[in-house]
């Protein structure tokens, strides 16, 4: 298009030229003198460029030509100030990108609905809280009755089954996560297949030779190439054969935000024993057999229920289910001897909670994400303020040029358009980078927020809201750093300076202009003080949790996570396990650099069983006293992991299944159960009398933060793994020095003992503990990045403003120096200005910071006053950055030759 336009323009010029030539030739032919003929023809012809312009106006599209011309002009202007262009593009890329990145997460966690039709009709059925885990899970028989009682409100059930071993021909084994779901799971939710079909009723049959499986879209694509190719594939999961019958719609990631199962399997698979789910029960001794199928056991609670009911009919369904669930509530009261708990359980009413308003992710991340969003908004604001200030300084430097152009007849609007066009170019480039950066940021943020070993999966499809926010920020930035400064500038400055060189290069900056740029700087300083303070607080919090005394030796312990939930370790082989553990321990302890080793049932943090202990001879204990957490460990566990034994003894080899069953309690559990009395020698059991004397307490150990450094130490009871032989999930090894050096020798040693032992990973205990600090890490890292960015921006701002100011006052400084001022005086003069601005910015910034620290106190370790020290530190850093940025122009001004400065007058 521009090419055609140029050709037309050329052709017009040639046409007019030829007109002129013919006219001259005619006059010459008539006998005129060539020189005179030319002059006369030109006179007759008129203003050639003007005629071209007027003619072109009749082509239409002149505005486009002007726009292209202005765009070219703008581009040239930008090329002349690459520093400004680069600063602006980077500022916008980071400022907008940060907001987009955080917003995408916020949207996925808090705002996004399930990608199905009428997601608002889906509700979670809260029938009763389970006795120990306090979950909303029900048994399979209860689910069947509830589902049968309400044909009008379809009810689905699901249970998270965790990772399974996936074997495919010619492929390394992997561990996709699985979810067990009822046959109507997809139909009730309204999830459409991307390929194949979803579950139907026949898929729920027990004991099939080949089980059906539905895959998540991304998982199917990564594993089999595409959704279509995945359908019909055969695979082995936990040793059983499966066929892929379908792939769910691309956007469907399951019903729990953050957790996306790779494979959905029929609920009936539980009966095969290969796939177990998280569960709660009435506790041991209550007619619970975990090893047998769960479908006919009303005392194992493992199913989450979701129903699809339009809003108006919810009360009726809830009432009906309440009635049907009555017997189950009565059954559940057997789990406790606490009369108050029993009564409240019997009086619970079934609640229907909208599916969208649920989820641990939401609870965990909503406030941190809001905080991050606020921080991101501030950094955007700081960026815009900074650019506005730079823009004003830049326009001031161009005042004379713009003035001359206006004097020559350029219109206000046209000049404005040219200035804004320059910035539109910047904003476009900046925003394009911001979109890319934002998408990248989201995935990085998710990685930071994920806990060790459980990666969050979120739907990051750009939503309409995401794009709208991007465009809005784009326009906002354009308005604040380009249009507004340009309009203000054109209105006030250009008219005064038009054509007057002396005014521009002299001390022409009015008090009002100075005040304006000072105000912008002050606002920047306040906001960046806020960001720096928050960053310091979050960093201090992270460091605190990473170094807090967890009651264990986190620096010298290596954790080996093994997967022994396999046939050769369970069932009739259980009895061989203590001997295997003893050999592992012996072999590991023989390794150089190993102090001790021990096995543990728990495979990480947050994994103790919720349990209850009843004290022999005491029937007055409440739920709050009897509930605690349980772990099964081998001998030497406490010395290996660094938990001191306070009283009594450790487990020993003599504690076998045949001997008296013993238990060791932690300090807080002992206090809960026995007050200040000595726990050693007390008898406890899982049930109230008469079964309350199964275990003899032989030891008391110190409390330890087994649920992660940021959580309080739970009341723990440890049982001997040898007396309750079961597969372990961890082997802990205490090293003399850095435990990481031992990884290889440990792996080798374990394989010498059991060549087929499946080792999932070997990690330092510290990594495992710190892996739980997702929220803290997210906040600390992001706030840290923001703080350094704003410091940089503030430094750039001070440098820019002070440089342009000192160069304006060059003459003044020259005179001052000539009159006897020292160079130190001059430097002090300039640095003093910065100091005043800093002070004016730090005061409101400190108030803002105190408010912010107060709001975020839930995520910060330490009191508000302790965190206020961070404000001081941040102010200091800010003051240093500002002064350093001013020092360069101040030095330049002070060390300029006064003669040189005065001569240029």
């Amino acid at each position, binding site marked *: 298009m521009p090419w055609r336009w140029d050709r037309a323009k050329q052709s017009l010029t040639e046409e007019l030229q030829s*007109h002129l030539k*013919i006219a001259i030739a005619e006059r010459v032919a008539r006998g005129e003198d060539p020189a005179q003929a030319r002059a006369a023809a030109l006179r007759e012809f*008129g203003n050639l460029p*003007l005629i071209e312009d007027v*003619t072109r106006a009749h082509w239409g599209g002149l505005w486009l030509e002007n726009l292209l011309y202005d765009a070219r002009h703008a581009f040239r202007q930008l090329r002349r100030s690459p520093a400004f262009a680069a600063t602006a593009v980077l500022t916008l890329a980071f400022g907008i990108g940060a907001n987009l990145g955080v917003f995408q997460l916020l949207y996925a966690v808090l705002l996004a609905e399930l990608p199905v039709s009428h997601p608002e009709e889906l509700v979670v059925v809260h029938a009763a809280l389970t006795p120990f885990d306090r979950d909303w899970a029900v048994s399979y028989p209860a689910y069947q009755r509830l589902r049968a009682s309400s044909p009008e409100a379809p009810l689905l059930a699901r249970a998270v089954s965790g990772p399974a071993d996936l074997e495919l021909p010619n492929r390394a084994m992997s561990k996709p996560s699985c979810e067990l779901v009822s046959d109507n799971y997809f139909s009730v939710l309204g999830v459409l297949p991307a390929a194949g079909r979803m579950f139907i009723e026949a898929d729920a049959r027990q004991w099939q030779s080949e089980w059906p499986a539905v895959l998540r879209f991304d998982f199917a694509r990564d594993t089999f190439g595409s959704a279509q190719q995945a359908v019909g594939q055969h695979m082995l999961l936990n040793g059983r054969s499966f066929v892929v019958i379908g792939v769910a719609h691309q956007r469907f990631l399951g019903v729990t935000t953050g957790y996306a199962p790779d494979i959905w399997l029929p609920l009936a698979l539980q009966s095969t024993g290969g796939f177990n789910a998280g569960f709660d029960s009435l506790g041991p001794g209550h007619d619970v057999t975990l090893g047998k199928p769960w479908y006919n056991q009303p005392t194992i609670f493992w199913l989450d229920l979701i129903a699809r009911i339009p809003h108006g009919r919810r009360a009726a369904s809830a009432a009906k289910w309440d009635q049907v669930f009555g017997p189950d509530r009565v059954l559940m009261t057997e789990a406790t001897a606490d009369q108050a708990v029993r009564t409240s359980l019997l009086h619970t009413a079934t609640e229907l909670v909208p599916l969208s308003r649920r989820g641990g992710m939401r609870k965990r991340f909503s406030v941190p994400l809001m905080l991050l969003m606020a921080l991101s908004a501030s950094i955007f604001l700081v960026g815009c303020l900074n650019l506005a200030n730079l823009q004003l300084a830049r326009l001031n430097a161009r005042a004379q040029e713009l003035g001359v152009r206006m004097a020559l007849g350029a219109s206000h609007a046209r000049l404005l358009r040219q200035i804004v066009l320059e910035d539109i170019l910047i904003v476009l480039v900046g925003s394009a980078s911001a979109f890319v950066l934002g998408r990248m940021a989201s995935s990085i943020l998710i990685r930071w927020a994920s806990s060790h070993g459980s990666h969050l999966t979120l739907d990051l499809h750009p939503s309409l809201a995401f794009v709208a926010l991007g465009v809005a920020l784009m326009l906002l930035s354009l308005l604040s750093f380009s249009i507004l400064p340009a309009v203000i500038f054109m209105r006030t400055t250009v008219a005064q300076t038009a054509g007057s060189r002396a005014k521009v290069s002299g001390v022409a900056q009015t008090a009002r202009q100075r005040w304006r740029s000072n105000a912008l700087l002050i606002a920047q300083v306040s906001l960046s003080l806020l960001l720096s303070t928050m960053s310091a607080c979050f960093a201090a919090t992270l460091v605190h949790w990473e170094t807090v005394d967890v009651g264990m030796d986190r620096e010298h312990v290596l954790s080996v996570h093994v997967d022994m939930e396999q046939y050769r370790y369970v069932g009739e082989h259980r009895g061989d396990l203590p001997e295997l553990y003893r050999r592992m321990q012996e072999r590991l302890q023989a390794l150089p650099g190993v102090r001790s080793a021990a096995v543990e049932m728990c495979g990480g943090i947050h994994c103790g069983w919720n349990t209850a202990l009843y004290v022999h001879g005491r029937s007055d204990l409440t739920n709050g006293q009897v509930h605690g957490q349980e772990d099964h460990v081998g001998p030497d566990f406490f010395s290996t992991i660094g938990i001191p034994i306070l009283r009594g003894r450790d487990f020993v080899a003599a504690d076998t299944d045949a001997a008296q069953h013993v238990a060791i309690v932690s300090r807080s559990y002992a206090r809960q159960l026995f007050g200040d009395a000595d726990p050693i020698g007390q008898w406890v059991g899982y049930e109230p009398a008469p079964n309350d004397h199964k275990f003899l307490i032989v030891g008391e150990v110190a409390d330890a933060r087994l649920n992660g450094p940021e959580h309080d130490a739970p009341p723990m009871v440890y049982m001997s793994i040898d007396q309750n032989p079961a597969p372990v999930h961890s082997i802990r090894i205490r090293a003399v020095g850095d435990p990481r050096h031992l990884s290889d020798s440990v792996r080798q040693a374990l394989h010498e003992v059991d060549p087929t032992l499946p080792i999932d990973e070997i990690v330092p205990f510290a990594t495992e503990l710190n892996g739980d600090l997702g929220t803290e890490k997210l906040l600390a890292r992001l706030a840290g990045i923001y703080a350094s960015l704003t410091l940089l921006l503030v430094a750039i701002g001070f440098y820019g403003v002070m440089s342009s100011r000192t160069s304006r006052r060059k003459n003044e400084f020259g005179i001052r120096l000539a009159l006897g001022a020292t160079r130190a005086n001059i430097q002090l003069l300039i640095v003093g200005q910065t100091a005043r601005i800093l002070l004016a910015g730090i005061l409101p910034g400190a108030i803002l910071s105190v408010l912010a620290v107060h709001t975020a106190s839930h995520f910060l370790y330490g009191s508000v006053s302790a965190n206020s020290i961070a404000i001081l530190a941040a102010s200091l850093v800010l003051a240093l950055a500002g002064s350093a940025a001013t020092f360069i122009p101040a030095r330049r001004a002070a060390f300029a030759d006064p003669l040189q400065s005065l001569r240029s007058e």
Partner: protein
Amino acid sequence: MTENPKYQNRIELLQGTLDMLVLQALVRQPMHGYAIAQMIRNRSGEVLTVETGSLYPALHRLERQKWVASEWKLTESKQRAKYYQLTALGREQLTSDHQRWLQLVRAICAVMEPEVQP
């Protein structure tokens, strides 16, 4: 860059009439701009002088309306020049313009010289 009001006014003033004159000039044969201006000037007995600043905008306007077509050719004195030619559409336009013009002239005459009327 900004359009000069002087030229703008003149175009406005001659619009319609100038277009008709230009079209009429092209009735017999294709011509370049200079020749068109000369022809109008000569035929009007030097009364009507078409300014270049009006002529070329008019020519380009007529071309855009597809009433004339243009082509680069050599003049007799071997000078490259852009020749304009009347199109069929232009011929129709000329006829209707001419009709309207005659009507206008008759009407004006009737007002100004009532005794000449039959």
